[in-house]
């Protein structure tokens, strides 16, 4: 008969222990997120080619290469994104030859995966 109150106490203790751990877990998650963000990448994670060093150096000042590697855009879309990052995300505007180097590299190595079985959209040609 005495077990029930004990069980209740144990449950309460467990519950409060869970709550007490929450700030620690929060701290560890914040640190884990920071560690992920700071994880060093090698330039070679990007496709080899002219302009890779420039792309790696310039782009990873803000974000890691996952954003590049997952992308598959035409040269025009890449070029448009350079303006978008400058206008919306405080990137130093890219101009002239340096811009060409970056955009050419991205379009060459991270271009559209395919034009599709019918050669892409007829209204874009």
């Amino acid at each position, binding site marked *: 008969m005495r077990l029930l109150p004990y069980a209740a106490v144990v449950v309460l203790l467990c519950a409060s222990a*869970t*709550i007490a751990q*929450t*700030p620690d*877990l*929060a*701290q*560890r*998650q*914040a640190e*884990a*997120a*920071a560690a*992920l*963000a*700071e*994880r060093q990448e090698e330039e070679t994670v990007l496709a080899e080619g002219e302009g890779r060093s420039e792309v790696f150096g310039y782009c990873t*000042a*803000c*974000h*890691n290469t*996952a*954003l590049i*590697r*997952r*992308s*598959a*855009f*035409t040269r*025009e*879309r890449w070029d*448009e*994104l350079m303006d*978008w990052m400058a*206008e*919306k*995300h*405080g*990137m130093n505007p890219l101009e002239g030859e340096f811009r060409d180097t970056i955009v050419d590299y991205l379009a060459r190595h991270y271009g*559209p*995966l*395919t034009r*599709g*079985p019918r050669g*892409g*959209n007829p*209204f*874009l040609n």
Partner: protein
Amino acid sequence: MAHQNPSERSVQELYRDDPERADALVWGRRGALQGAALAAMGAALGGSIPFARNMPSGLVPAALAQGANQPQFLQMEGKAPLILQGERPLNAETPEHLLDDPVTPADKFFIRNNGSVPDTVADARAWKIRIDGEVNTPLELTIAELEQRFEIVTRKLQMECGGNGRSGFSPQAAGNQWGNGAISNAEWTGVRLHDVLRAAGVKDGAKFTGQHGADSHLSAQGPAISRGMRIEKAMDEDTLICFRMNGAAIPQMHGAPARLVVPGWPGSLSQKWFTRLEVLNKPHTGRGMGGTSYRIPVRPIVPGSRNNGADFVDMESMPVRSVLSSHAHGTRLPAGTRSLDIRGHAWAGDLSVRDVHVSTDFGQSWQAMQVAAPPNRHAWQRWQGRIALPSDGYYEIWYRATDSNGRMQPHVAANWNPQGYGANPISRVAILIG
């Protein structure tokens, strides 16, 4: 990129490297899968294809529709192995089969960041939230004061990234290539924004809001994101200033210690690490407003074309969508399995879901599932049912929800836009019997 003779590669390799070309080659002009091509496809998939006659040309079999890069998974204490979309900013998607809980637990809640995750705060109850702008009495209240002064409510609320489903767009749209897993349905506790705004006294000219949080942009210049909504949505009884999730403190990844929750609208409105809400007499101009950000075309544009979004409109209520949570994509079942009980969830922004239909013959016939009522408005709904499988072999379960206005998930992502919002095509899970 090498121009090899396709016959030198297996069907699987061909699909992995160049799915659309593989599809065209395998299906041929007449769109019928026959003879050697059918056998090769079956071999690549690991079984026969019972409904091969109905497989439409141009649709890559779901089992092969993954890119050459296998997904990477998040490893973080307190989080399930979510699909890692990127480390900086940190973004991770919940695989559909981990969305089976009626209330999404913290470990299975997707992660979406625009900037850096802030440090934790020592005293959560002293965290301050400011309400100002077009109000009679600007307020600055701690969480403790909010709890004391206003009615505390608890609701199950769906929260979904505005870009959920983006990977459905062709050509590719810019941003995280989400499948359907940037969705959650946690139980949130907080106070109604409506009650707080009433206490501040909203002026007659108030039309919009502007939200602010403590996370900084990755460039360390300014805030990560600051979005706003029409005042009507701010006054909705389900728009809450929350300080608890699933009965516990809000996890750090999800906006501790206070988060705005704006259910059914793009998740970016649900400001994490919430510090301030401005009431405005014109649309907000924060980072993430205007142009093509969280905005969709009114007049459909050519997919892949350039557009500055000047005549787009802000995305508001999210479109109808469903997940299948009982079986993972790629599930293998014992030979002789002839029926399967399946289930998942469906939701539709501010609306509710009327129907969910399932097809196992590539869309030729559809079967109605049972759909439960939501436990409260803005909560997702459980769907379930039993499907028949006439033989061993490869199947795709296609599932499609219909909202309370009768709009269905389309066969392909509609209304293409540069940053990829609103893609909600029918989803497909591949299973193999035997």
